[in-house]
């Protein structure tokens, strides 16, 4: 009686075929969904490459160094836009990096009350969520009119330097750089702050223990320990700056005439796309796709480099 009862109790339950089918197909389903990410990425490259073949064949690599963009005669060269993309991103980084890292240090040291620091940190993160088109609107009506007198003074006294040689009259490279700085600051500040927070407290205590001042500890111990995260953050910000479209499009002036002056209207690849794609046809579409391909390759390299730096250069603490 008991023996047969326990036999029944412990009898192995065989999984019905329907359950195996559901299990197996669910695994296949999620694998396919995961594969879709890779497929979309490949499709993006393929679509942009296929559409740009005509311009690729016609202009070749001279597209990259030719600054003439003329839809009327079907002559296309993207040098002005490529130069604008690189210049605006690097100038914006030059201003945003010291400001961002300085703020991150200020937010991780105990200069002010923890609660005030938490409020500032949260605000910076929330402000990163403001859409770039709203920042563009603000740049047109507030930032550019505010910055213009300052830029005019610079032009007055330093106009002999080619970079400042144009009288600022409205949209141009410099207002675009300023709005980019505002967009990049939250990214750089947040990532640098997180990297600094992750440095083990022992390092700081050891530094103070051997008699360093606060700033010696920051420069010689804390920053070197957090540098990989900070550089990774800067690279991500660089990728973001290069791809940034709306705010820049609205304030850069969209001029395809090359100028050395930072106060003159200029263009970036993404601004060129945003402006001309809607009304383009024929070879112009293909040329725009070629420009998009260039932008993709540049941002791809920057982003992969950023990932590599974060992964391989970080100091490991056990």
């Amino acid at each position: 009686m008991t023996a047969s009862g326990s036999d029944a109790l412990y009898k192995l339950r065989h999984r019905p075929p329907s359950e195996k089918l559901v299990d197996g197909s669910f695994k296949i389903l999620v694998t396919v969904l995961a594969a879709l990410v890779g497929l979309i990425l490949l499709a993006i490259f393929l679509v942009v490459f296929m559409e740009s073949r005509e311009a690729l064949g016609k202009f070749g690599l001279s597209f990259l160094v030719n600054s003439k963009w003329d839809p009327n005669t079907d002559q296309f060269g993207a040098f002005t836009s490529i130069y604008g993309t690189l210049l605006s991103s690097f100038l914006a980084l030059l201003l945003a990096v010291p400001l961002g890292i300085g703020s991150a240090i200020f937010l991780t040291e105990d200069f002010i009350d923890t609660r005030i620091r938490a409020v500032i940190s949260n605000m910076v993160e929330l402000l990163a969520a403001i859409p770039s088109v709203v920042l563009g609107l603000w740049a047109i009506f507030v930032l550019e009119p505010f910055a213009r007198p300052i830029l005019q003074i610079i032009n007055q006294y330093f106009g002999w330097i080619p970079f400042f040689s144009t009288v600022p009259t409205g949209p141009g490279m410099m207002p675009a750089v300023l709005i980019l700085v505002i967009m990049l600051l939250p990214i750089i500040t947040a990532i640098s702050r997180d990297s600094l927070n992750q440095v083990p407290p022992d390092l700081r205590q050891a530094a103070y223990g051997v008699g360093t001042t606060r700033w010696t500890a920051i420069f010689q111990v804390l920053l070197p320990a957090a540098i990989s995260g900070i550089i990774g953050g800067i690279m991500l910000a660089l990728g973001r700056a290069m791809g940034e479209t709306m705010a820049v499009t609205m304030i850069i002036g969209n001029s395809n005439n090359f100028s050395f002056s930072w106060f003159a209207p200029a263009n970036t690849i993404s601004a060129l796309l945003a402006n001309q794609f809607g009304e383009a046809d024929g070879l112009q579409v293909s040329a725009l796709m070629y420009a998009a391909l260039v932008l993709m390759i540049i941002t791809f390299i920057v982003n992969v480099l950023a990932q590599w730096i974060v992964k391989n250069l970080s100091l490991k603490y056990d």
Partner: protein
Amino acid sequence: MTSSFLPAKPDLKFKPHLLRNRGNKLLTGIAGLFSLIAVVPLIAVLAFVLFKGISVIRPMMFFELPPPPGLEGGGIGNALIGTLLVTGISCLFSIPVGVGGGIYLAEYSGNNKFSAFVRFGTNVLAGVPSIIAGVFIYGLIVATRILFGNSYSAVAGGLALSVLMLPTIIKTTDEGLKLVPQELRWGSLGVGASKFVTTMKVVLPSAVAPIATGVVLAIARSAGETAPLIFTALFSPFWPEGVFKPIATMSVLIYNFAIMPYDAQVTLAWAASFVLVILILAMNLLARWISGFAQR
């Protein structure tokens, strides 16, 4: 012997006039100044948008169409509906695919090459400029007229946005599922549940808060995106005519109206900015509330 290493009278007092102490003060001041410079413009943007928005917004704006150039009044009703519709379409695609991909990464992939490729692809996709997503959908859907012969449409706009939402959702799902204790899976499998039941009924419900946080953040980001929409969803001065027709969205409305020389349009751009910023900040706060809820 030892006394020769130390000054005759060890003096432990802080000497503010020393160069290094002065330098310290100077650097502290500079760091404070830098954070002030960093925070002020950001707060100025928010304050200006909110202030300007409150001063121009009227309740009727939510129910009216934008006026033809040169006329007064009008509203952003069609753009508000359009933003909700296009964002909704993007969710329909990106949430199932993103959560599914995240489940694969967290539950089914070991450390094989395929999952490394998917993780790499997710990171690369996260770095793809938003305008490229628009260019891609334009080349794939708009130019080929693959959607029943329609070119610009709300669906095309929604798909462009979903390309941008996908990496965020996959990453947060993957990370959220990894936080679920392994004992829960063992327990469920131990009492005889299949892997499918374990994942759907045990693992996923306990990770719902971090996943929801990621989804809400992704929606908030896509609601403000403009670049992918300007040549996929285009714009329309009329009420939405269905998902296969061009549609107005608030972000494209701001872009189009900001540079118009008419006061009525610029006013609408500010009103739309106000509504968009409030919407996005509210969603960010919601995301914080959800993730706080998860940590409890």
